[in-house]
């Protein structure tokens, strides 16, 4: 480790605000780019599964409906 | 019987051509008029003059009731908006129409399921139908319709004829142009060719 203390690592001899904000912004942007499609994909997958289950439940029920 | 439209000795000049002269017409409530005439005889020009859109070159006197709906060759719809949005604005003249009324009108013209489709993605006839849905939303007494049957299929034409008749029975009046002979009870015909100058 180059820095002696947490405080030194945070301030970086006056450049801390720049360096840390650059890293924070970068990781926020990239995390958003990753999480947003992941969440959307999960939502889609859940919707597709639900639809599938609904149809699977419907088919026999429909057959039964015509039975009497 | 209330009189909704009166033309006295109306003539029309476009550019250097005198199209027709001496047209006399009285349209009373309950009457259904078809305006016929060959291409270029002046039907559209006459309807626009009646509506007050183009009075340059018009001779004679035109008295028209103010409660009037005009639907010309151009649909007046935006292809970027959905059917619903088009009607929401289009038919209203500033008065908000409930969405249920609009959906009902769209259903009447056979566009169930297309309410939220962007107009530009409809077929030619479907787009014309959206324009015609105004007729189910309008409170005007005199309807001026320029070739309302264009691009409409056989079923649609029957439905439209029904609506025109219904409007007349409810005390309105309709003047429309069409090149197809229309077989409707009580139809009156004004042939512009007879007045050609």
């Amino acid at each position, binding site marked *: 480790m180059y820095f002696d203390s947490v405080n030194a690592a945070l301030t970086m001899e006056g450049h801390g605000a*720049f360096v840390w904000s*650059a890293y924070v912004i970068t990781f926020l942007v990239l995390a958003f780019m990753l999480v947003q499609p992941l969440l959307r994909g999960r939502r889609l997958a859940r919707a597709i599964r639900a639809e599938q289950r609904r149809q699977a439940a419907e088919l026999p029920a429909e057959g039964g409906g015509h039975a009497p | 019987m209330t009189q909704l439209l009166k033309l006295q000795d109306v003539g029309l000049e476009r550019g250097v051509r005198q199209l027709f002269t001496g047209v006399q017409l009285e349209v009373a409530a309950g009457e259904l008029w078809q305006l016929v005439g060959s291409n270029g005889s002046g039907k559209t020009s006459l309807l626009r003059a009646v509506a007050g859109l183009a009075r340059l070159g018009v001779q004679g006197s035109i008295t028209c009731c103010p409660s009037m709906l005009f639907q010309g060759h151009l649909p007046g719809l935006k292809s970027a908006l959905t059917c619903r949005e088009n009607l929401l604005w289009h038919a209203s003249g500033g008065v908000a129409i409930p969405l249920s009324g609009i959906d009902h009108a769209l259903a009447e013209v056979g566009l169930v399921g297309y309410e939220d489709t962007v107009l530009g993605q409809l077929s030619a006839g479907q787009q014309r139908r959206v324009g015609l849905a105004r007729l189910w939303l309008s409170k005007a007494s005199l309807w001026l319709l320029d070739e309302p049957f264009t691009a409409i299929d056989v079923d649609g034409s029957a439905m439209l004829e029904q609506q025109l008749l219904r409007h007349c029975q409810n005390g309105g009046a309709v003047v429309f142009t069409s090149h197809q002979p229309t077989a409707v009870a009580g139809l009156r015909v004004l042939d512009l060719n007879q007045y050609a100058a």
Partner: protein
Amino acid sequence: MWAFIHKFGSPPWFFRFASTAVRWLLPVVIGALVFGAVWGLLYAPPDFRQGNSYRIIFIHVPSAVVALAGYYVMASAGLVSLVWKIKMADTAMRAVAPVGAALTFVALVTGAIWGKPTWGAWWVWDARITSMLILFFLYLGVIALFEAYDNKAAAAKACAVLSLVGTVNIPIIYKSVDWWYSLHQPASIKFTGETAIDASMLYPLLVMIAAFYGLFALLVLVNMRTELLATYRQSAWLRSELG
């Protein structure tokens, strides 16, 4: 070879491939990013001229390098989609554009933040900065064009044409901006780059560059997988895949 391309072009196969790849890449990429960032931020020695502000380089340069490479990936996908009409290439192209734009954005923002302590201004019209800004615009153009079409099949073709035209232009743009800058070069701006970089700084930088390439692949695959879910939600293969 053809069989391979064919397999790659088949949505079911690709969906399976992407799902597996994402599962493996995700921990690896995140691990590498954290490792490289900690190394660069806390362990690497400071630059003798710029002090600690240079630590931004460990995200600035990788994002810039990968963003530039991303455009070529996108254009290649466009070429494949136009010539061989492979649907997955459309999906790939569509997925690369936002990722590339985000990376370019990161390069610009980190560069601007770096500029404040170094040059005393958030923004200067340096050749490389300007080129990067133009690359950002090129990405935005592709995204905007795609969004503007209702018919997404047509949208993909249009974007393919655009990105190909862009590829022809990128070298010309870069060269011309360089010439432009050397013609004007005002005295008040001095770019510090082009100095030999010390190994103690180079290794974390290389780690971060590799991590950003991995991140790029990961983001593109995640986007493509999601896109497939949306496009083929009605189809049987997807249902059996998920079921």
